[in-house]
């Protein structure tokens, strides 16, 4: 083996190490950004080495060069533009899109190699066929599945679980076709059958994700992310490229663990999610009663007074804040209160909103200082010493029902809002949250409900504070 290729291999190994180190550093907020840089360096090294390899090998048609260059340019431009312009809160669907293209590319690598070998006529070794089949199947499923997932989160496709009679059966059929075809290919090589397998896999990806509720998408995306990694590793087996094998396996495994962490955080189980669960994204409209038994409503002015004369206020943001895009309004109100000497902090529940870190992303957008955002464990003891807990579009994460067994959210750690001296809840109705269950907090005598859209409500609160006690 020539020294040149040896050097290339060593660079690949170094690149892989950069990826590992990068992920390692990403485990803590303090070092996360450096982690991303290290990982980037590894990627650049790997690609550069490959470029050198390609040039070194030579014998590439001019067209191929042009096509490759064009592809890279187009792809990079698309990636750069979308990444730069995307709304913070729309990032999950973008990540999903990147999964799609990643998986697609992996499948294409396998497909092309298979075609090449088929052209050569000589039979294809099993040790090549097996990874090829796995590569195209996983890659194709990821591609179509991720597109659907992105569509659901973007609202292009209804986020409600789509299901039709015989869906399960169709799913099964497609799986059988894909796997059966793959098995067949091991004995006899046939490009046609490979195409069939690919099509079946693509269809399967669609039918797999469609029935899943939009709220579960973050988990699904993470899962598809792990899939992509595995597909890339398989592609690595096909073309005997260690960089692909190592990096792919790395993502496959870490992505898997991450998926589990995510699912645990919002106490759902992965199989549970794939089979399709309760997460319909926002069942609010369903139950749009404006008031219920024993619920006391409150007007802007009274709420404003309470807040203005409190000495300690904790703001509890939830999905509703994101839905209303009211991040700037809440920041403004908080600043106003602070300027009056009120101590204001934000209580961030790990799964408030619809994606992990949703609230952090949202409030960061409104330039709320990161130190003011307190994690659940840190803030929970504080509620007892709090005059007013201002709950904005948060529901499940404040629901005391989680403390007793037998409810949809039993066991999920919650924010101890009910410990606060008084509680103001801003939401449009008595509508349910993601878990679709009633919230006893709203019936708590200490609680007063401010029924309105979060954006409007916060705006009027701010002006009320200004006029009344400015």
């Amino acid at each position, binding site marked *: 083996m020539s020294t040149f290729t040896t050097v290339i291999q060593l660079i690949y190994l170094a690149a*892989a190490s950069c*990826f590992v180190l990068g*992920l*390692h550093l990403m*485990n803590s*907020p303090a070092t*996360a*950004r450096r*982690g*991303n840089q290290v990982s980037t360096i590894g*990627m650049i090294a*790997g690609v550069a080495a490959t470029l050198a390899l*390609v040039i070194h*090998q030579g014998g*590439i048609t001019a067209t191929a060069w042009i*096509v*490759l260059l064009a*592809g*890279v340019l187009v*792809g990079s431009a*698309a*990636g*750069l533009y979308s*990444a730069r312009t995307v709304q913070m809160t729309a*990032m999950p669907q973008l*990540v999903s899109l*990147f999964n799609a*293209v990643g998986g*697609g*590319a*992996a499948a*294409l690598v396998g497909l*092309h190699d298979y075609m*090449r070998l088929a052209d050569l006529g000589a039979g294809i070794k099993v040790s090549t066929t097996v990874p090829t089949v796995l590569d195209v199947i996983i890659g194709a499923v990821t591609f179509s599945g991720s597109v659907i997932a992105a569509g659901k989160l973007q609202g292009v496709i209804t986020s409600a679980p789509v299901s039709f009679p015989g869906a399960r059966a169709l799913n099964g059929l497609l799986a059988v076709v894909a796997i059966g075809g793959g098995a067949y290919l091991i004995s006899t090589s046939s490009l046609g059958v490979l195409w069939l397998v690919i099509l079946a896999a693509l269809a399967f990806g669609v039918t797999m994700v469609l029935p899943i509720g939009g709220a579960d998408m973050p988990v699904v995306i993470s899962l598809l*992310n792990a899939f*992509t*990694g595995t597909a890339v*590793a398989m592609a*690595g*087996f096909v073309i*005997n490229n*260690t960089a*692909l094998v190592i990096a*792919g396996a790395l993502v*496959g*495994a*870490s992505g*898997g*663990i991450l998926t589990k962490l*995510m699912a645990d955080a919002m106490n759902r189980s992965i199989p549970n999610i794939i089979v399709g669960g309760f997460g319909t994204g926002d069942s609010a409209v369903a139950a749009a009663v404006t008031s219920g038994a024993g619920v006391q409503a409150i007007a802007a002015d009274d709420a404003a007074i309470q807040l203005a004369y409190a000495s300690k206020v904790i703001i509890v943001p939830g999905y509703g804040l994101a839905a209303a895009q009211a991040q700037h309004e809440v920041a403004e109100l908080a600043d*106003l209160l602070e*300027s009056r*000497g009120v101590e204001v902090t934000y209580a*961030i529940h790990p799964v408030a909103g619809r994606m*992990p*870190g949703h609230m952090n992303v949202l409030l*960061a957008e409104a330039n709320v*200082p*990161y*130190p003011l955002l307190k994690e659940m464990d840190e803030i929970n003891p504080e509620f007892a010493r709090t005059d007013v807990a201002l709950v904005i579009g948060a529901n499940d994460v404040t629901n005391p029902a989680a403390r007793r067994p037998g409810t949809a959210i039993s066991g999920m750690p919650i924010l101890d809002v009910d410990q606060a001296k008084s509680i103001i809840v801003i939401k449009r109705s008595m509508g349910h949250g993601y878990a679709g269950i009633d919230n006893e907090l709203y019936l708590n005598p200490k609680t007063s409900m401010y029924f309105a859209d979060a954006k409007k409500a916060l705006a009027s609160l701010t002006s009320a504070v200004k006029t009344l006690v400015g």
Partner: protein
Amino acid sequence: MSTGLFDLTIFVLSLWVGFEVISKVPATLHTPLMSAANSIHGIVLVGAMLIALTANDAVGYVILFVAAAFASMNVVGGYVVTGRMLKMFRRRPAAQVSDSGKAAEVTAGGSANGTTRAAGTTSASRRPA
């Protein structure tokens, strides 16, 4: 040792690394981590580039183009978006003027706030018990 076996070995070892590298992560980091892993599988660009070595007909070129485009979108987009997500971990001054929409104004905001805070505390003492 056969390349197949070799690949399998490093595959398994890499699985272990990936399995161990994700430790207890604050939920806030889940999405950035996912995005980081996402950009790493952009390494498939290497595979796409190698297609160029053997692509020599229309179909080959189409595949090459699409694969290259897909892969590089994954790489570039992935790293940029991860970077953006991580920006939010930059510690900002303990508070800032509400309508300072841009991070640029933050420092100014911070200092300005120093005063507002002082004012705030006094007004706080002034307010009814």
